[in-house]
């Protein structure tokens, strides 16, 4: 590995940043989860409320996805080139699911939309199901590996005829994808409770919070069980990658508070939020579960990339595995981007300010009736 301390520091700093952005993205999946609940709201008013409350936030989630991609590209271009160029159909499927989201809110109810409102509601449903499940599968493949090798000039050669879709056939990957989908449906429901002041919407959402949490649980437990018991990819001091027993368990333990700590605290927070929402009639569940989800996701990203672990391992050719050390941008670029990253708190600051200004009062049926600009 590189002997230059500050280079290594920057590589780690950038994995930290990517993990933070990724964790926030996972939290924002409540938008996608919420989209999959649209059809549960049968009456027109409830549906309108639900779609309009999501419509004010969807761009934030979308932009965070773009930011996650951009940060990965700038900081770890080898990952970007390998995964996108290799798992071709997989990423194309994710792409399409977000492209159809971007037009749906704006087009759905506008006169002149000859495809009908329902088409775009189905688009939103598809984005919710595919977007979240597949991105969950992508994160799981950070641990289970992908079938590729890199040639001398770092060109990627994918070793599966399904070019990417094979990731969806792995039960370990799929368990995280589906677990994440149902957790997002849960947070989607919690978001509705928080942002819509309407008894029908709130009652149905409380039920959905419980139901989806219960469904998510076995998938997540399955994933966690296999994560801590499986062999993991490890880079030794000479840069050679090998499979090591209980690698991810030891990562979680060695990362201490930011590993096993965040994971357990996060799980507890999520459970507490379900309790508050389902049994204590609280409207604040989304914030508690949201914080918990950020912690859990961060611990997973940290486990995948820190502690001499290649975050994008190759199951076909171990030595082609990509780590934050061999896959990063140059020392110079990482330091320029580190300066740029000092503006992140500023951006987060104005986003929170605007969020607060726009959402301090929950949406009501009265507002929906008064406003001519609607989704």
């Amino acid at each position, binding site marked *: 590995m590189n002997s230059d301390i500050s280079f290594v520091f920057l590589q780690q700093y950038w994995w930290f940043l990517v993990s933070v952005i990724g964790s926030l993205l996972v939290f924002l999946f409540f938008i996608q989860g919420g989209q999959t609940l649209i059809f549960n709201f049968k009456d027109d008013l409830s549906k309108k409320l639900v779609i309009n409350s999501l419509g004010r936030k969807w761009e934030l989630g979308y932009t965070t996805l773009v*930011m996650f991609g951009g940060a990965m*590209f700038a900081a770890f271009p080898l990952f*970007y080139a390998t*995964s*996108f160029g290799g798992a071709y159909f997989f990423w194309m499927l994710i792409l399409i699911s977000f492209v159809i989201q971007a037009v749906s809110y704006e087009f759905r109810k506008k006169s002149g939309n*000859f495809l009908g409102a329902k088409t775009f509601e189905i688009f939103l449903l598809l984005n919710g199901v595919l977007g979240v499940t597949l991105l969950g599968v992508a994160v799981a493949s950070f641990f289970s590996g992908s079938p590729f090798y890199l040639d001398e000039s770092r060109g990627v050669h994918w070793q599966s005829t399904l070019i990417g879709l094979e990731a969806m056939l792995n039960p370990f990957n799929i368990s995280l994808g589906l677990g994440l989908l149902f957790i997002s449906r849960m947070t989607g429901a919690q978001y509705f409770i928080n942002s819509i002041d309407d008894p029908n919407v709130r009652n149905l959402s409380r039920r959905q919070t419980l139901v989806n949490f219960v469904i998510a649980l076995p998938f997540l437990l399955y994933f966690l069980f296999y994560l801590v018991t499986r062999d993991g990819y490890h880079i030794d001091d000479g840069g050679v990658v090998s499979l090591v027993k209980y690698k991810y368990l030891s990562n979680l333990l060695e990362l201490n508070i930011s590993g096993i700590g965040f994971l357990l605290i996060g799980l507890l927070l999520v459970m507490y939020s379900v309790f508050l929402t389902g049994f204590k009639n609280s409207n604040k569940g989304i914030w508690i579960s949201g914080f918990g989800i950020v912690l859990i996701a961060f611990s997973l990203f940290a486990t995948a990339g820190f502690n001499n672990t290649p975050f994008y391992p190759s199951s076909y050719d171990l030595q082609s595995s990509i780590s934050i050390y061999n896959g990063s941008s140059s020392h110079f670029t990482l330091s320029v981007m580190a300066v740029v990253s000092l503006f992140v708190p500023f951006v987060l600051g104005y986003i929170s300010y605007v969020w607060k200004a726009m959402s301090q009062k929950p949406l009501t049926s009265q507002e929906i009736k008064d*406003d001519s*600009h609607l989704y």
Partner: protein
Amino acid sequence: MELNDMVNVDWARAQFALTIMFHFIFVPLTLGLSFIVAFMHTFYYKTKSDFWKSVTRFWMTLFGVNFAIGVATGLIMEFEFGTNWSNYSWMVGDIFGAPLAIEGLFAFFLEATFFAVMFFGWKRVSPRFHLISSWMVAIGSNLSAFWILVANGWMQYPVGTKFNPDMGRFEMTSFLEVALSPVAMSKFIHTVSSSFVVSALFVMGISSWYIIKNRHLKMAKASIIIATVFGFISSIGVIATGDHGAHYVAQTQPMKLAAMEGMFKGERGAGLTLFGLFNHNKKLGDDQPEYFFEIQVPYLLSFLSYRDFMSFVPGIEDLVYGNPKENIMGAAEKIDKGKRGLRALDLYRKAKKENNTQEAAAQRLIIEENEKYIGYGHLNAPEEIVPPLAIVVHSFHAMVALGSYFVLLFLVVFAVVFTNKCEKFKLLFWISFFSIPLGYLASQLGWIVAEVGRQPWVIQDILPTHKGVTHIATMAVQTTFWMFLVLFVILFAVEMSIMVKQIKLGPDDGSDSQGGGAHE
């Protein structure tokens, strides 16, 4: 593998051209209409009149419909860099990724955050904060244009960059050189101001339709005044930066300039062809004329290029075969140097593997000597450096003609509306209405000149387009090409249908057919 890559590159290029040309139908309107809406919103904020509120809301609705589809198509490109151009992403990601990430952080969040306030903040936030939000969306959109043009400018003129033989890729050596590159600056201003022109044509054209139909006259006239003033000022910017741009193209991409002008033999005191009938059968080295007929401004090309009426502007043949008299190196020599560099790279890697430091150092020296030409090493014949000529020549001349026409149109329409003589010039408003698509055409042509004119390079001189593609079955790229095509056709049809419907409905100003003064 090589053959597969050659077929692949055509499909990957077709797909990228499809996506970016489709994307760029929506971008100009986002860039310009956001400002026009912000102006209107400002009038509303100042006057508190219902009239300006309805005008603002009307154009804001059209802005929103257009914006959504621009956002949707923008994401496709970010993905395509990786999926279809993974070798490109690896070779230059160290430089190219940075402006993309900065664009996301600084511009996209600004747009996304304030977009919701702009549309839904009428009653939820203070009028002042609401107005600021409209401005933030306009600033955010244009800031995003800046960063993406920094990235594109770098592809035209790769500054602040060095080849790293250990990694086998290009790396950034100076961020400021990349971000403040004069080529990027001039591209940014040219693109943004021309997008303002497209938006001004859009607003003017639709308002003209209302005038023809005798509906919403007050709103239509007010919108026309704003649009023509905005459009005229922007047109001046387009022309100024067009000149500026040509100057940089001459310095940094002489082949592109020669192709734009269809100039085979270089000359001193070269004239600028404004209009002409290009000879498609003309081949390198033959005696056929370049144009069957042309209108030329003498000496202008020399002046635009080097700020000297008598300077030598190299033609295509000078650049392909070299011109020792004018001190221009031919492509054959560059290819030779490039191949020497690539061979040294192979030997360098081998020496490194064998821990032969002396040999490695020697080869590294050879790589550095030939670094400037290393991209040429992937070419085989000097003629390969010539871009497709006909499309570049025609696109360039059509763009210039359209740009000049727009200036005139803005002036005339402004004069007629300002002096309140609309009834006498119905035909003018039809012309104005049918000029909407011409604005879009001009902006697409501009991009064709910039991107096709750069071929065979994806990064000028350092990476040929065919070396940037992913090694993947052509079938995969074909599949997604058709998928995108179908998707775009559907989305475009819905978008147009919604737009037309919204325009037919018109603004909610409570007075459908009464006329009135435009300026108040």
